[in-house]
């Protein structure tokens, strides 16, 4: 490259860099500076002494954290709920997508899709209200109508741990089944129609077509989306685990995830060191998982790998 050309390219870069600048600055502040903030996990944070004045304490925060029962509970809950969401959520989404595709009629599909997407547009706060309408002890629908009809004594749902894994999974499905089915529907629409026609000519029933053509053709999409979710298995939906159980302390055994733990530590107990340790624990393992998941996706299908 000649000198003149190089200079030309440099001058050309400057205005483009300038256009990108606000975004760069924002990401640097919002996303990169906190990355350096992970050192807080190794400090005995003191509000008066401040961020830099507080004493270093090595791995003490982590030692304390992993001595507590909380560490096991939150890790277990985060992973098990995510696994349940991945398995049940994927099956439900594919089920809906296949049925929707078979409808064929645009109008009916559109109506069904609109309704199914509705819960996805609601905030977790509003969904917390919806669940509350069913579960609250005095005026809830379940206690007042369903259990009464079955002659079962009312249950105080917000302090009984047992049903919560079920409640949280149902709530999750309610909110997300519509959106996830859209992705699978798009995949099914991408399958060559000629294959179905050929199968039909050979006398294949609809069921056979679904199990022998549609599902096998969906395999790459399923594998990729599943691997991506496994990469995020250390992160939980804060709203689902905070708003839906109304932050009820009696339920923590089955509702506490890493994200709600960090929130409690930071905002309620004001134990900065401990919650910073939990957050770093999540970031580091989360990073390792995303990287491995991506490596696996790349092995399956280079095109769909993140990088």
């Amino acid at each position, binding site marked *: 490259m000649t000198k003149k050309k190089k200079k030309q390219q440099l001058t050309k870069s400057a205005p483009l860099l300038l256009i990108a600048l606000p975004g760069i600055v924002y990401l640097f502040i919002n996303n990169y500076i906190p990355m350096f903030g992970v050192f807080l996990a190794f400090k005995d944070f003191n509000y008066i002494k401040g961020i830099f004045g507080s004493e270093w304490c090595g791995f003490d925060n982590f030692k304390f954290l992993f001595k507590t029962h909380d560490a096991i509970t939150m890790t277990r809950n985060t992973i098990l709920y995510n696994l349940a969401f991945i398995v049940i959520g994927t099956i439900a989404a594919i089920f809906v997508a296949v049925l929707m595709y078979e409808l064929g009629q645009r109008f009916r599909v559109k109506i069904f899709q609109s*309704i199914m997407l509705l819960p996805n547009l609601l905030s977790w706060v509003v969904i917390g209200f919806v669940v509350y309408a069913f579960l609250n002890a005095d005026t809830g629908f379940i206690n007042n109508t369903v259990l009464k009809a079955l002659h079962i004594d009312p249950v105080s749902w917000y302090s009984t741990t047992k049903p919560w894994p079920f409640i949280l999974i149902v709530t999750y499905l309610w909110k997300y089944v519509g959106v996830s089915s859209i992705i699978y529907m798009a995949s099914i629409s991408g399958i060559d129609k000629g294959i179905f026609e050929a199968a039909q000519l050979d006398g294949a029933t609809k069921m056979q077509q679904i199990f022998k053509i549609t599902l096998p053709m969906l395999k790459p999409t399923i594998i990729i989306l599943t691997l991506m979710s496994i990469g995020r298995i250390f992160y939980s939906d804060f709203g689902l685990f905070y708003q839906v159980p109304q932050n009820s302390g009696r339920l923590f055994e089955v509702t506490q995830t890493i994200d709600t733990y960090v929130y409690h530590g930071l905002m309620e107990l004001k134990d900065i060191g401990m919650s910073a340790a939990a957050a770093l624990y999540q970031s580091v393992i989360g990073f390792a998982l995303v990287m491995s998941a991506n490596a696996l996706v790349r092995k399956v299908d280079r095109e769909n790998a993140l990088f």
Partner: protein
Amino acid sequence: MKRQSRDDAKTFRLVSTIILSVLVFFILLPILLVVIASVTDENVLISSGYTFFPSKLSLDSYYYMVKQSAMILRAYGVTITVTCVGTIISVLITTMLAYPMSRPNFRYRNALAFFVFFTMLFNGGIVASYIMWSRIFQIKDTIWALIVPNYLVTAFNVFLVRNYFVTSVPISVIESAQIDGASELTIFFKIMVPLAVPSVATISLFTGLIYWNDWINGLYYLTDAKLFGIQNLLIRIMSNIQFLKMSSNLALLGTMNIDLPGTSVRMAMAVIGILPIVVIYPFVQKHFIKGVVLGAVKG
């Protein structure tokens, strides 16, 4: 044989319709319960709880909210302001960041792509970010606390717009503008932004929905109820229905203390939080679905 397969397809279609109708019915049911609860008479609520077929309807909770309109309108005002300002700033910065990344001859395009992409892989966690925003930037209890942290630029949106530029805007458009002597800024604002409208519509929708539904920033950075938007107001009400009584006109309360519609008001507030979304949604559904499909492929 052909006849048979057509019958088979027909039955299958019928079964699909039935199963999906049932499913859709159950998905709609919880929302319906909330709406019905909001117009149920308070005495019925006390005796038989939230039901689908209340024996007496009443609009008391809505009248009550009209009386409390100052607080509710204020919360609406905050939410609308935050949603509009946040979405406009976000879309502007995001598009500006995405465009240079789409230019094949831009020197730092890969470096920039990595810079944006890495934010998807690793984050410093909420603790460091909370301390930075609240101590260094002193953002607590300001309207900016609801706009700036977390949502302005997301890697997801940046890549969505960049991919749109790469696939849908031919490079010759830029080249001919350059030959005509247009500066980069002119090219961006006069040519690229109008061309990017479809992808801008999609990210505006996503971002707008995020701001409308956000309560997490409020939870972390607000202690002053004056700045509460709808979502944070709902949280406050859920935790304490007394909040309404306290902030209302005491003299007014004296006259209507007896039939204060507590339990139905909660649900009426939830309805008010949902309403704008339900009204706007049918008009934008197409873009929304397109965005979900686009996003799933990459990201």
